[in-house]
């Protein structure tokens, strides 16, 4: 009897704690209800004026996570803030605490008559398309949401990851002394990861045709491929041990593991390159080796789309945002001027189409 009672209590307690955990960021109250009291913007027309056509109101719905996540959510919000400053828009955001709340959080803005709604992340694609069908007069900007079919009032902000990877490849090849560079990648099941990899490899070969590029994809599924820093660190070490001296980490936390491992070997003269955002800010542990990051410029992409929505020439379907390399920070002096010039030249070539990344989706 005693045994079964203690067993039941244990199971209940553990189930309770497990239910509180999950994929949320720590420390937040795990309420299912969306927080309605997000800070209203201090602008002259108030939120109540949103239904009026002359007042531009922009709402942002984050993916599960915080608005100041130093990643996608924050970058998109900065684009919205720029619209507030430059276009006089009324702006507001909702932090999603649970993937079940996507629809409800979008509805918070559509009900108040917002004109433009930004939804951040691939995972919100379905909820965005649904809300767009129900609210044909509202413009939706879906960050990282590839549009397979064109919906008139949805613009998917996507990025040419292969171009960002190409620039990173040129930089890596230019900095390599051993003529061997490596990439530690998330899974090949996610197309942008493949684009980063192919671009990186071709970029390196563009600068040094005889360079050796070694790369590994995480062999696990979507559930582990981006959250396995131990694997990433092991790959980086394996690559460094056989002479690779620039490591490109592209795969969420898995890639971050590779960056931190490379930083621990920085005394051997190895460098690392981050991905998506300027990882100098997001992974300070990697600073001893981090020469740059292959960035997707979400902030200007979001701003441009809001501006186009205001001007009345909102593009439906896919809108390709800018990509580029992050600042070199402390390594600025170590990067030869001719390499910087070469990167600028390649960047220009990629933009005007005279250089192809060789990546076919």
């Amino acid at each position, binding site marked *: 009897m005693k045994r079964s009672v203690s067993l039941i209590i*244990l199971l209940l307690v*553990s189930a309770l704690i497990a239910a509180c955990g999950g994929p949320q960021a720590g420390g937040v109250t795990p309420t299912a209800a969306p927080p309605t009291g997000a800070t209203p913007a201090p602008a002259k027309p108030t939120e109540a004026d949103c239904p009026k056509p002359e007042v531009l109101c922009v709402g942002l719905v984050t993916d599960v996570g915080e608005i100041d996540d130093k990643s996608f959510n924050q970058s998109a919000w900065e684009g919205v803030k720029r619209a507030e400053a430059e276009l006089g828009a009324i702006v507001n955001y909702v932090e999603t605490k649970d993937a079940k709340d996507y629809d409800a959080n979008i509805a918070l803005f559509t009900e108040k008559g917002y004109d433009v709604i930004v939804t951040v992340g691939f995972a919100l694609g379905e909820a965005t398309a649904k809300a767009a069908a129900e609210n044909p007069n509202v413009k939706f900007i879906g960050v990282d949401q590839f549009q397979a079919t064109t919906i008139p009032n949805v613009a998917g902000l996507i990025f040419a990851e292969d171009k960002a990877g190409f620039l990173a490849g040129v930089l890596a090849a230019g900095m390599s002394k051993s003529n061997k560079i490596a990439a530690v990648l998330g899974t090949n099941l996610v197309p942008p990861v493949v684009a980063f990899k192919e671009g990186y490899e071709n970029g390196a070969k563009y600068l040094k045709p005889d360079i050796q590029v*070694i790369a590994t994809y995480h062999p696990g599924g979507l559930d582990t491929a981006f959250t396995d820093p*131990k694997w990433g660190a092991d*790959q980086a070490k394996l690559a460094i041990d056989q002479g690779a001296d620039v490591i490109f980490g592209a795969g969420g936390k898995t890639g*971050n593991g590779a960056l931190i491992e490379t930083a621990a070997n920085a005394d051997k003269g190895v460098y690392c390159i981050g991905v998506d955002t300027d990882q100098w800010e997001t992974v300070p542990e990697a600073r001893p080796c981090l020469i740059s990051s292959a960035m997707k410029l979400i902030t200007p992409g979001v701003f441009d789309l809001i501006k186009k929505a205001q001007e009345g020439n909102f593009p439906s379907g896919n809108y390709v945002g800018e990509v580029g390399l992050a600042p070199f920070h402390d390594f600025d002096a170590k990067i030869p001027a001719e390499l910087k010039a070469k990167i600028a030249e390649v960047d220009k070539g990629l933009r005007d189409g005279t250089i192809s990344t060789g990546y076919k989706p």
Partner: protein
Amino acid sequence: MQITDTLARPSVARLPWVTIGVWGGLAILVLVAYARAPQATTAVLTSTIRQSTPIILGALAGIMCERSGVINIGIEGMMLIAAFLGFMFNVWTGDLLLATMGALLVGAAVGAFHALMSITLKVDQIIAGTVINILAVGLTGYFYQQGLTTRGKLTPVSIPVLADIPIIGPVFFSNPPITYASLVLIVVIHVLLFRTVWGLRTRAVGEHPAAADTVGIAVNRVRYINVIIGGMLAGLAGGFLTLESVGSFERNMTNGRGFVSLAVMIFGKWTPFGAWGGSLLFGFANALQSQIQFLKNQLPPWLAWIGDLPPQFIGMLPYVLTIAVLAGFVGRARPPAAIGKVYEKE
């Protein structure tokens, strides 16, 4: 009875020739590979040790618990909790030695919790382990905050002279502290289990607790201490992940390595050296699957098809190898006889 069979010291005369043949063959392969590509061979072997470290520590944890008759499927959870708190100690104190001690203590505490549940409270031992696994995912996921950073991780220490030997030097004598500790612990636990009074008592308690009791061994006390030691070993494995291998924490970062440890423990028939062989095989297969991807563009034409295989397929290699060796060479694995049974005095 089979008891005498396992209680007897493993003697040299009974060494399985198949195992020797396999390892001998591997050694020759390594030498051939080294002659062709010294740098890559050394790198793969270094990676093998590195990837096998958390596995062997977890397996040693399992051996200590199960040899005394307590099933421990909570190794994964013990590793995860210790990895998390070890990381937090590192964030708070910035002292890696203190953080490692912290991870050990946390492991001991979770081990004591497991002992309390399975010995004193007489909870089903499988359930007790499952509770620890669920608890670990929930607790660490809830309390972890993004953006915590540390001042570094444990770095390799080269042992003078020995580290200069080709192949063996970089692989065995140029490692970070917890890796050295794991190599030493394999020998220590082997001696402890098979050459000391304590080990004899532990095995007696795991095989036939009633008999052990009649000769005056405090069965539950021996079990408690062994489960706590096991918890400390699992804690060290967790500390390895956050303090030595990665340098930061991520939710659910053990990624099933605790369960692989269990498989490796059975693979090694509940012996430290057997488990070490299993974890090396697992680590080597993991390193090899990365190396195959690295070599994608350099394979000779008749092997080019290997480079075109999906990484997920090559990723099965460690598991397929484990199953093949387990089924083909290891033979029937017999756990300690009293495993999973609560001991109650009649």
